[in-house]
């Protein structure tokens, strides 16, 4: 087995591990009223302390995606071990990077969709990681919300497959040149 294949195999194995850890990658809270824990493979949303059942439905489809990605990874790693590799399966390498879009999506929804309903004085902060104070008013009530957006510990571990995949690409390019 070549070095590139070894790195690629370790990419697949670490990806399989991360895919099947049933923990969220990201935590997002709007004033503690709207709380989201999610990963590409699962989601839980709670509104005023009660879990949204419709989010459980979405959770089911995300888990189906988990099964899809998992089977692909197992298949590709088996093919690699047998030496019959067709194409690299790169999904797990770009998922954590793609995940930065999640807060941007929430920002777009809150700032453009909800502001069209509530009126002009609605300026939602753009926040990727951190805490932000958000003040607005609605029907003579002044609302002050603390917005939290944090990756969980697992999120940082999801970059391990990304790094391994990039390493595999680089070493593969070098060995093909020589």
């Amino acid at each position, binding site marked *: 087995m070549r070095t590139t294949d070894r790195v690629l195999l370790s990419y697949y194995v670490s990806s399989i591990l991360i895919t099947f850890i049933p923990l969220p990658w990201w935590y997002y*809270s709007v*004033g*503690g*009223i709207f709380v989201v824990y999610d990963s590409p493979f699962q989601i839980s949303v709670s*509104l*005023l*302390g*009660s879990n*949204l*059942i*419709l989010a*459980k*439905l979405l959770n*089911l*489809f995300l*888990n*189906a*995606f988990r*099964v*899809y*990605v*998992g*089977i*692909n990874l197992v*298949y*590709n790693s088996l*093919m690699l071990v047998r030496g019959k590799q*067709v*194409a690299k*399966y790169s999904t797990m390498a770009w998922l954590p990077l793609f995940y930065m879009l999640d807060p941007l999506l929430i920002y777009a929804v809150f700032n453009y969709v909800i502001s069209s309903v509530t009126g002009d004085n609605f300026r939602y902060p753009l926040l990727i990681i951190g805490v932000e104070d958000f003040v607005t008013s609605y029907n*003579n*009530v*002044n*609302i*002050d*919300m*603390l917005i*939290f957006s944090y990756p969980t510990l697992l999120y940082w571990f999801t970059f391990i497959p990304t790094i391994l995949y990039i390493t595999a690409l680089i070493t593969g390019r070098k060995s093909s040149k020589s």
Partner: protein
Amino acid sequence: MNWGKILGMVGALAFILIYLNYITLTFHYGILQVENLRLLKNLNVSIVGANSSAIIVRMNNPLNVSVTVCNISGKYIVFGKPIVIPPQTTKNVTIQITNYQSLVNQIDNNDEYILIKLKIENTTLTSVNLV
């Protein structure tokens, strides 16, 4: 399209089919829950007792999170320590009146404003209302 992707699709579809019964049931309850959330009012407030020195207000918290009443105050109204109303409970809140006659006059003149400050988790709601 390679065999990995085809097998993955089959696996994912099988996974969804296993839970097919669950999907229809969950969808039903999900819609029901959203409708209930719309019906839900923040706090049910009713006055239980009042005399010239205090007003007793009963507050019912229908939410699954606790609500803190930080402040209820006006020119002749005083509120003591913040009161925490745990989820799905009712509590009586006493509001002291410092000067009854002045308060009545203020209300008659449409000049009595009450500041109400509530805290739910990390959200603070403040409103100034004319009585």
